[in-house]
């Protein structure tokens, strides 16, 4: 079960799109997963053959649980030995045949708690050992003597993958410690589809679950991350004029919107100032190579989700527009893909369309920075002793003091501004 957001602890496999024996190609959608926030499509990250489905439709499992066994074409793992259980993509390890079936999460937990998996009776699909089985075994063994180490925190995992030949992996953010009061998984309803009267209750439940999940994540962020805030007004005159002139030459469908320019500027600035791009867990910061920008997207009817656009600093504005259109549409129709939810390294929220001038954002843990943009408004603007009227946006930064300070944050905001003064280079 892939991690589809830092606030996700479990997911419900709502539909398999493959059956055992199917050949799948990297990027294929193999399943739909319901979370508290939306229904999402799970992609497969390697080409191979689906040997076994480990989770049934309708089953709710913790993140990190293996969903299926995928083998390379031509392999015959089923022939003689027990099937391999795939390592999560977060480990980027080759699939290895194992003697006992257990989810990667259960296996790591067992190692941490000193539980012998050979002695554990599995209660999962086809007898696989689950996290709960390990915890139960550990508690039985140590009824008199509590374990010296606490139960492991779930780790990020994309379970359906054969990563041995993968290119360097996208960073998978560590999953933060589970909130004590995370909501139970709700029955997901496509956020955007017209809702028949009979499903209003389920939709309301989903929205309530989403609100609780967002609240829990934000509360944890504010409790654990020492935020600091910076803001600056950016002259967007050059950028908007350039965009408007460029749009004159484009078809309607190919027009740019200011959000694309802002995203690209943030992506390039994050590349320049890497202390803004990555994850902080247990007070340790890990810089991430790719710049994957989470786009805070309001769902029609309520709720918030922040799918990622990958490698923003490397993409053209046209590609960014396409990606932006795709993630917004998917977010609002409940068809996001697992890859779009698993690994944003920094988040941008733009509330300008709602008339907001200034955004004071809450960092989306375990990320370390969030950039907010307000409404583009005309302001008196003095420059070189001359007063004029310019279109200006207030850009804000919420950043993590464990990783950076105001000096670095200021460099980051300046870099965003500088890129927006040269829109043709974006």
């Amino acid at each position: 079960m892939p991690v589809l957001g830092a606030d996700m602890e479990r997911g419900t496999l709502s539909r398999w799109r493959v059956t055992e024996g199917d050949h799948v190609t990297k990027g294929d959608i193999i399943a739909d997963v319901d979370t508290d926030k939306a229904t999402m499509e799970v992609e497969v990250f390697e080409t191979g053959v689906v040997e076994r489905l480990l989770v049934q439709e309708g089953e709710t499992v913790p993140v990190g649980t293996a969903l299926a066994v995928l083998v390379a074409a031509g392999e015959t793992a089923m022939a003689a030995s027990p099937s391999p259980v795939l390592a999560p993509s977060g480990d980027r390890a080759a699939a290895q045949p194992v003697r006992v079936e257990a989810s990667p999460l259960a296996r790591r937990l067992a190692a941490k708690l000193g539980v012998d998996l050979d002695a554990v009776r599995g209660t999962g699909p086809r007898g696989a050992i689950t996290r709960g089985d390990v915890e139960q075994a550990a508690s039985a063994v140590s009824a008199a003597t509590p374990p010296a180490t606490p139960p492991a925190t779930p780790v990020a995992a994309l379970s359906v993958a054969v990563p041995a030949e993968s290119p360097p992996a996208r960073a998978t953010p560590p999953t933060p410690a589970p909130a004590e009061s995370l909501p139970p998984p709700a029955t997901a309803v496509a956020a955007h589809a017209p809702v028949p009267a009979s499903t209003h209750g389920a939709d309301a439940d989903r929205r309530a679950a989403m609100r609780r999940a967002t609240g829990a994540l934000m509360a944890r962020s504010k409790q654990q991350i020492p935020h600091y805030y910076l803001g600056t007004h950016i002259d967007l005159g050059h950028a908007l004029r350039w965009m408007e002139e460029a749009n004159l030459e484009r078809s309607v469908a190919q027009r740019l919107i200011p959000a694309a320019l802002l995203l690209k500027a943030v992506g390039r600035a994050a590349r320049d100032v890497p202390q803004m791009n990555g994850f902080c867990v247990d007070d340790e910061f890990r810089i991430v190579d790719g710049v994957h920008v989470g786009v805070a997207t309001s769902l029609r009817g309520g709720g918030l989700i922040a799918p990622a656009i990958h490698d923003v600093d490397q993409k053209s504005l046209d590609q960014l527009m396409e990606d932006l259109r795709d993630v917004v549409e998917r977010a609002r129709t409940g068809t996001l893909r697992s890859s779009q939810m698993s690994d944003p390294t920094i988040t941008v929220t733009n509330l300008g369309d709602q008339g907001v001038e200034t955004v004071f954002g809450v960092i989306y843990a375990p990320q370390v920075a969030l950039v907010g943009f307000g409404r583009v408004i005309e302001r008196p603007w003095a420059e070189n002793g001359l007063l004029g009227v310019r279109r200006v946006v207030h850009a804000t930064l919420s950043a993590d003091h464990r990783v950076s300070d105001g000096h670095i944050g200021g460099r980051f905001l300046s870099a965003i501004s500088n890129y927006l003064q040269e829109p043709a280079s974006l």
Partner: protein
Amino acid sequence: MSESEIRATVLGILTRIAPEADLTALDPDVEWQDQLDLDSMNLLTMMVDIERATGVTVPERDYPKVSTLNSCVAYLMSRTPVAQ
């Protein structure tokens, strides 16, 4: 296209973009961005759909002229082949 056809077309587009909205309560003379909570991506989608459905391309500089239901219908009426 007749005025009623254009109006129905625009309302159909709005329904796809904001399916949860009660368009019967839409004030045709008030900007729909405020009434329907549309963002810039929604507006761009709307312009794409309008062009596809009516054949009328709305340039960016004319966006303020199509910001309400009535003004949008009037704008499109003045530019559709039948209306001319």
